C-alpha cells in the first residue's frame, strides 16, 4: 500500500491532489429506522484478515504522512448507506460484493424480526467513511 501511494504521487502534477476514500471502521452497522430515527440491529461479521488489511492500509497512510511524501490538507467524515428491502437481500448483497465480511444468520433473523415489528421502517447498512485531501510534497 505504501508503494501504491508512492506510485500515485509520481502521477500527480506538482499542484495536484490525492483524494483518499476509505472506511473509518472495519465493522459496518445494520440499522433500521424511519426518518431520522435509527436503531442499530447488529453489525456485520468481519474476519481477522479484513481487520488486518484495514490496519495495514491505515498504517501505510500514516507512513507516507510521517515521511512527508504527502501532507494532509483536509479530512471529512461521512456515512455511506446501502438500503435494502429485506434482511435477506442485504445478506446476499454482502455475500456477492464483499470478501471476509458477512451478515450472519442470527443478525439476519434479528433484522427481519425488527423490520416486521416496525411497519414502514427502512433497512440500511451504515459505513462510516473518511475522505481526505492530500498534497504531494516535492
Amino acid at each position, binding site marked *: 500500500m505504501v508503494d501504491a501511494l508512492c506510485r500515485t504521487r509520481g502521477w500527480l*502534477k506538482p499542484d495536484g491532489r490525492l483524494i483518499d476514500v476509505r472506511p473509518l471502521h472495519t465493522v459496518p452497522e445494520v440499522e433500521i429506522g424511519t426518518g431520522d430515527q435509527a436503531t442499530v440491529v447488529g453489525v456485520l461479521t468481519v474476519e481477522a484478515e479484513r481487520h488486518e488489511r484495514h490496519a495495514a492500509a491505515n498504517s501505510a497512510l500514516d507512513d507516507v504522512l510521517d515521511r512527508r511524501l504527502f501532507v494532509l490538507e483536509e479530512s471529512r467524515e*461521512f456515512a455511506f448507506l*446501502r438500503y435494502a*428491502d429485506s434482511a435477506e*437481500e442485504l445478506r446476499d448483497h454482502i455475500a456477492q460484493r464483499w470478501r471476509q465480511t458477512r451478515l450472519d444468520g442470527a443478525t439476519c433473523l434479528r433484522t427481519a424480526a425488527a423490520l416486521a415489528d416496525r411497519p414502514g421502517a427502512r433497512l440500511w447498512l451504515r459505513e462510516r467513511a473518511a475522505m481526505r485531501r492530500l498534497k504531494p510534497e516535492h
Partner: protein
Amino acid sequence: MPIELDPEERELRTLLELLPNLHCARVVEVGCGDGRLTRRYAQSAASVLAFDPDEAAIAAFRSEPLPDRVEVRTDAVDRIDIPPSSADVVLLSWAL
C-alpha cells in the same frame, strides 16, 4: 428493488467539497470497481482514467455506455502505465 447505494449522495457531495475545481481536473481513479462513483462525478471533471484489476467489475462498468471523457481499463496500480506528473487528481476509491 435493487440495493440502493448512497442515494443521499453524501460521498459525491464530500468529494465536490474537497475538490471545488474538479471541473478542470484530469482525474486518475484507482480501484473504480463497476464505476459507481466514477459515473457520479465524471461529468464534473475534465477527463477521467479509471482502472481496477477486477475484470468482472470493469466488464460491469463497460456494460453501460461510458460517460464522455472517461477511459476505463482493467489494470493494477503496480502495473498501469501513466505518464509522470500528468494528473491533477488521483482518487483512491475505497482501495483498501
